[in-house]
């Protein structure tokens, strides 16, 4: 009896195997179609977000996917349908292909006489993704070899927690560094003074400007001296604030000198000369 079992079981097993294969193939086809739809959806939503000028919080993740991942992943899946999960290797391949597609697409736009701007590039990248997605959906699924189950980060709670914690620590480190670097920049205290012609042929008018980087509100004394006389006034500026004013030529032809004084500093604190021919 026991000896007959394999012979009896064999056709059943073969049938079961065939049925499983058919089911698996169907699942793979559906899976391929689902993935194609998902890729196309991401590309279209990212394109819409770009063209409609959606808020950065919406555009940023979609745009990162559209430029760095989605076109390459779609092309890689089109070329190798048996690769199903997003592993580190397939991620790297997708990113490399996406970066190459983006670079070549920009070159193509320029060669075609079109501007290399985000909107145009998004259209091309979305079109590449849609074409590849259509190819994935239409392509007859090739049976991939059976792969032994491997643990993935999605299924492993502890590694995922560790990685999330690491990302938080790195993010916080970068944020704190940024705060430190900005504070370091602000530690340099200085004031800018300038005098430049407003525009070519604009009746000789000069634009005067003062910008305060002293780390707090400051009151300056501005003096303009020309061949025929001088004028002075006080300006109070908050930290980071800018004052500009047109300087008409009341002081005659020839160079004028603009000086800026600040209490507690040598006089003049800043000085510029107006060299444009004042009429």
């Amino acid at each position: 009896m026991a000896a007959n079992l394999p012979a009896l079981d064999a056709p059943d097993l073969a049938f079961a195997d065939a049925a499983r294969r058919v089911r698996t193939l169907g699942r793979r086809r559906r899976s391929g179609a689902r993935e194609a739809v998902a890729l196309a959806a991401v590309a279209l939503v990212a394109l819409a977000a770009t063209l409609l000028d959606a808020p950065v919080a919406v555009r940023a993740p979609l745009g990162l996917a559209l430029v760095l991942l989605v076109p390459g992943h779609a092309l890689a899946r089109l070329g190798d349908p048996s690769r199903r999960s997003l592993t580190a290797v397939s991620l790297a391949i997708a990113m490399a292909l996406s970066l190459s597609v983006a670079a070549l697409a920009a070159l193509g736009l320029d060669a075609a006489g079109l501007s290399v701007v985000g909107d145009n590039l998004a259209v091309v990248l979305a079109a590449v993704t849609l074409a590849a997605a259509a190819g994935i959906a239409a392509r007859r699924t090739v049976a991939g070899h059976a792969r032994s189950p491997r643990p993935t980060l999605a299924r492993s709670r502890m590694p995922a927690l560790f990685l999330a914690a690491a990302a938080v620590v790195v993010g916080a480190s970068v944020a704190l560094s940024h705060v430190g670097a900005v504070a370091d920049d602000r530690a340099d205290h200085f004031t800018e003074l300038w005098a430049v012609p407003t525009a070519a042929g604009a009746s000789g008018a000069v634009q005067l400007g003062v910008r305060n980087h002293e780390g707090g509100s400051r009151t300056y004394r501005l003096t303009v001296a020309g061949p025929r006389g001088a004028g002075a006034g006080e300006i109070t500026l908050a930290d980071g604030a800018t004052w500009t004013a047109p300087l008409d030529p009341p002081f005659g032809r020839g160079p004028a000198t603009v000086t800026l004084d600040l209490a507690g500093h040598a006089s003049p604190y800043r000085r510029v000369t107006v060299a444009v021919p004042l009429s």
Partner: protein
Amino acid sequence: MSARVPKRRAGGAVALVVALTGLVARIERVAVGRTSTPSRPPRRLNVRSGGRRPPDRLRGERRGTADHRGLTAAAAATLLASLGVAIMAAADEAARRDIAVAAPLYWGALLVIVLPLAVVACAREVGPPARLLALIALGLGLYAVKVVHSPDGFTFNDELQTLRSVRDLDTTGRMFVENPLVRSYPYYPALSSTTVGLAQITGLPIFVAGLCVIGAARVVAVVALFALYRAAAGSDRVAAIATIVYATNPNFLYFDGQFAYESLALPLALLALVAVVRLGDAHRRRRPAIAAGALLVTAGVVVAHHLSAWWLAAMLIALALVSGVIRRVPERRRLMVGAAAALSTALVAAWYFGVAGAATRTELGPTFRTATDALVELARGRAGTKPPFSAAPGRSDPVLEKLVGLGSVALLGLALLVGLWQVVRVAQRRRSPLTLVLALLALTYPATLVLRLTQAGTEASNRSAEFVFVGLGLVVAFAAGAVGHWLRSRGPAVARLALPLGLAGLAVLLAGGITIGFPPFERQPGPYLVGQGSRSVSAEGKAAAQFAAQSLPPRSRIATDAGNRLLMLAYGGMNPQAGIASGLAVPDVFFSPTYDPVPRTVVEADKLAYLVVDLRLSRQLSATGTYYDREEPLARQRTSPVDPAALAKFDAVPGLARIYDGGNIRIFGTGEPPVG
């Protein structure tokens, strides 16, 4: 209340120590190989089958458990490495405040980032996913070191020069707009176009978009290296060791993490090389897809960076030649590699001769020419050797750093000798042309050291490290494997030394690479320094550049010092001039004690509309020995700062107008038409 605070702090410290101990324990469990003999059966096995599964399934479960533990260890090491990044951020903050602890913290942080991840990546009983996770974390962790160095904008020389081309593309929407400092940048527009595209599509600032692009490239680089070494060595573990050795090359930390074209192109080139190697082994159905992918990525490399594209073509040609020589290589594989080599060479040649040749020659020609001339002069005995580890006269690296740098070179030389013998054995056994080609590439390492004997050759040597180490990484990994095998054969007591010895060697290679590649003042942020790229970027300089962008005609021709030149180029939109004009050096405008006759001649001949004068150059010795550019008189020989009177002379010149005064930085209008 006051008594509770110390208790809480102590509790927090204990919790931190316990947590760190837990992380280290998880890493150590993998490092010492306990996963191969788990102390208890896997839980899932007991629950589902009660131990009645067939042997192959059992092996699968055990491997799965080992993989799971490997992933957990890799993730734990990643968490530890992230603490290293936090320490690095603290070290950089200390450096900004000029606190002495900055340097020890810097080295400590690097070791915390690298060593735990290296332990997991190189452990015996770890699967490829865990190794790759650890390696990617290592690559990104070292990239984070560069990010926290300059977290609020690009500061490195090449970054600011690249930024000009990026901003030109961003504002005009056109490619190939002239870059006045590096003419070749617009002709290799891959980085500019992807960054501008990403910034405009996402709405992110260009700086953040650039960081994302280079971060993605870093992931590609690490995965491609691992895949390349895996194909060459036939071992995941050797591949992981080789990848880590590659990461110790002098340029991995900063140069190839900066926002510049090579940082994008080299990873793509590595992946293209992997694709061609895999093409020969792939199933017939998969070959067209792999070939198409390799072609696409190769085209991306060609429009991204000249040296990377040439290196890729050279590697493929070498691979084709070696495949032709080795008799047992299948004919099909020979044909495929030959076709790939021919195609990539054709693409490189077409781009060079059709588009970028003149600009590329302008950029690279002088570098190679001066390096060659300096070597010839040295060989003829007409010139002396450059003292090692000295960025400028009067500035020498600390003795300990010199020793570590020399130690790393000695270690690499020794490993090269041991590893080559192993490589030849493996290449013969595995019929692997790739292994031989990488070994041949590693053999060029001693030649790059010879280049360092001259100042001009040092730059060429620096720029070759990231390419040469692709071969050197594999050879050193084989050497490490041979040494480990020898230690294990001496008995358990000696075998226990393998891990600490390996980690010590890695620490020396890492520290030595950084010491050789970057002088101390360049590794961390800090107070303003004259003549040094990232340390010459100051708030005053940025403010002056922003003034220029807002108030001066775009692309005006200007002359200024090395630090302000980059800011005026990138943020100011100006066209800085350097080098020689009418037979006179442009820096003479600033060094000359009087305005007549030399400065006036240069200003008129070079049509300089504005002169940007930085008074700080008269108060500090240059960190690199130059103040303006290489053409300046007494370049790298000055022992005192610029004469203050020479910088003050412009105020007394009739016809020159001081149009901007920012304290240290002054801008003078010369009366020349703004746009030449």
